[in-house]
């Protein structure tokens, strides 16, 4: 009887061990698949064209050459692209961090009836396809003479964006109302409460939003494609996309261009991982 019980325990231990190692193997296998395309990109970018096409397949570039990167940087006005990118990614951070906390404060901490109505509308606007407003908005900016400039892409950020207001609201809701009430009794204006009390308490969510805005503008393709005609205004990732031409067979250059537009984001991710993941899980209401 007891022996049988012991055997059962050993059997279940073996089973546990097996399932543990099976889990590890699965993880390794899928990690390998997921990392492979990225590795393929880095690898090809460091090769000569001949090596990239060599058979049997060359897995490690040997020797490592930077020709492709040099080509990419000489073919375009690289410094200009970097400057454009910084401008295009940093201005909207200012815009969003100006408008969204203000609106979120109105929705959560000022007791008025409109707050709920506005929040409902904000949720609703997130479902409206961007193509619906695309043409009229374009024609507004065209009539104002602002096409081929950043204005149509940057100015709207100063009027808030549904998604970031939502993130901000989710966070501000958790701040205790008693602080605002106490400050009001002491005669502080709402602006003062927002800027001296609430803002400092929202540091984490502000950084999260800043990271998300930076990413979104770094990645932006559609907006730039719609409004910019002049290649001297391109950002890094949009400018790099112009290298796409499979007929030219310049795969090493194309991979160098992709690496150039990806690597800074990966570096940013390693420094700000917490904020990336924070933003994602807040969105789903699981925070």
């Amino acid at each position: 009887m007891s022996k049988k019980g012991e055997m059962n325990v050993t059997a279940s231990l073996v089973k546990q061990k097996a399932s543990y190692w099976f889990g590890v193997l699965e993880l390794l296998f899928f990690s390998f698949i997921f990392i492979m395309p990225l590795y393929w990109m880095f690898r090809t970018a460091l090769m000569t064209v001949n090596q990239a096409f060599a058979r049997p397949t060359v897995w490690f570039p040997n020797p490592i050459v930077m020709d492709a990167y040099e080509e990419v940087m000489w073919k375009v006005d690289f410094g200009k692209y970097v400057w454009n990118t910084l401008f295009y990614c940093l201005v909207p951070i200012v815009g969003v961090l100006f408008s969204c906390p203000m609106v979120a404060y109105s929705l959560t901490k000022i007791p008025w009836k409109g707050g709920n109505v506005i929040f409902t509308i904000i949720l609703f606007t997130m479902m409206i396809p961007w193509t619906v407003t695309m043409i009229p908005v374009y024609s507004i900016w065209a009539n104002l003479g602002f096409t081929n400039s950043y204005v149509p892409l940057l100015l709207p950020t100063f009027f808030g964006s549904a998604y970031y207001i939502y993130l901000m609201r989710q966070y501000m809701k958790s701040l205790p109302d008693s602080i605002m009430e106490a400050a009001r009794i002491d005669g502080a204006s709402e602006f003062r409460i927002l800027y001296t009390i609430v803002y400092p308490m929202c540091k984490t969510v502000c950084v999260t939003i800043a990271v998300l805005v930076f990413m979104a503008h770094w990645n932006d393709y559609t907006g730039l494609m719609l409004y910019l005609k002049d290649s001297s205004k391109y950002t890094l990732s949009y400018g790099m996309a112009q290298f796409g031409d499979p007929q030219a067979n310049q795969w090493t250059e194309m991979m160098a261009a992709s690496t150039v537009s990806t690597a800074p984001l990966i570096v940013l991710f390693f420094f700000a991982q917490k904020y990336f993941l924070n933003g994602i899980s807040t969105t789903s209401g699981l925070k």
Partner: protein
Amino acid sequence: MTSSSLPMDAKKMRKKSSIQERRFARQGLLFASPWIIGFLGFTIFPIIMAIYYSFTDYDMFGTTNWVGWENYIDIFDDRYTGRAVKNTIYIALVGVPIGQITALFLATLLNKKNVKGMPIFRTIFYLPTLVPAAACALLFLWVLNGKNGILNIALSSIGLKAPGWLTDPKWTKPALIIMDTWRCGGAMIIYLAALRSVPETFYEAASLDGANNTQKFWNITIPYIAPTIQFNGLMAMIGAFQYFVQAQIFSSITDYGSNAAAGGGPRNSMLFYCLHLYRKAFKQMEMGYACAMAVLLAIVVMIVSYLIMYFSEKKITYSVE
């Protein structure tokens, strides 16, 4: 009760509170004003204009004439639109489930408690989402390259047929789905957070009752995270209807010499609804027609979102009972 019958204090208080209320309403409006202005200027006004344009032959330059329902009728007559709708539904019905299942699967792998180095695996699965869409398209042109792409090298090394992913109209959409599934890290993180929120006691109780892992997964995990599945699924579905950037880059790059009338890759196999809409508006300058397409899309997105929410709500309450 007349106001004169109130005690003095209460009257004063009420007056004071209504003043306070009005003050709050003013402040609330003031603080929300950036959004209100933006909403009126960049959402409501454009939507009204889009609906108006959809009944005209608007092209931004010439005179605008009222054409009634003509644009809407043309949409149903246009064979390219039919193609675009079919392609879009393909992504919505095949691509979205594959992406969501992969994301959930990876999340369950990451949710094992005892494996060391989990953050590293999580980072590896999440990294692809950091690649900008444009760079990702370039990368996959190379990864999926017919002769020298790594995927085909791998496939032929294990003796499978290596398709021409980006040249064969049958394989272009699977190619896009592979690319998007590779970038499922965002949904994966959300699923992971959901999996971690399932109370451990549920599993312990089930173990005592002799449930195995599969039973636990289907009877505890899935019902518990159903709202998350609904959220992710809905977002992915809305995304699929608006599928654009990847298709735009892929088709503009792979579209050499082929039938360029609509410009949707080999034999228009990558012509998606929004891509067609964009080409109509900005390449052929048929903006009235494009607005009609956009209005129809908005209606469909709203109906589908409503249906998903309606049905999954029913199912969720059912499975919890």
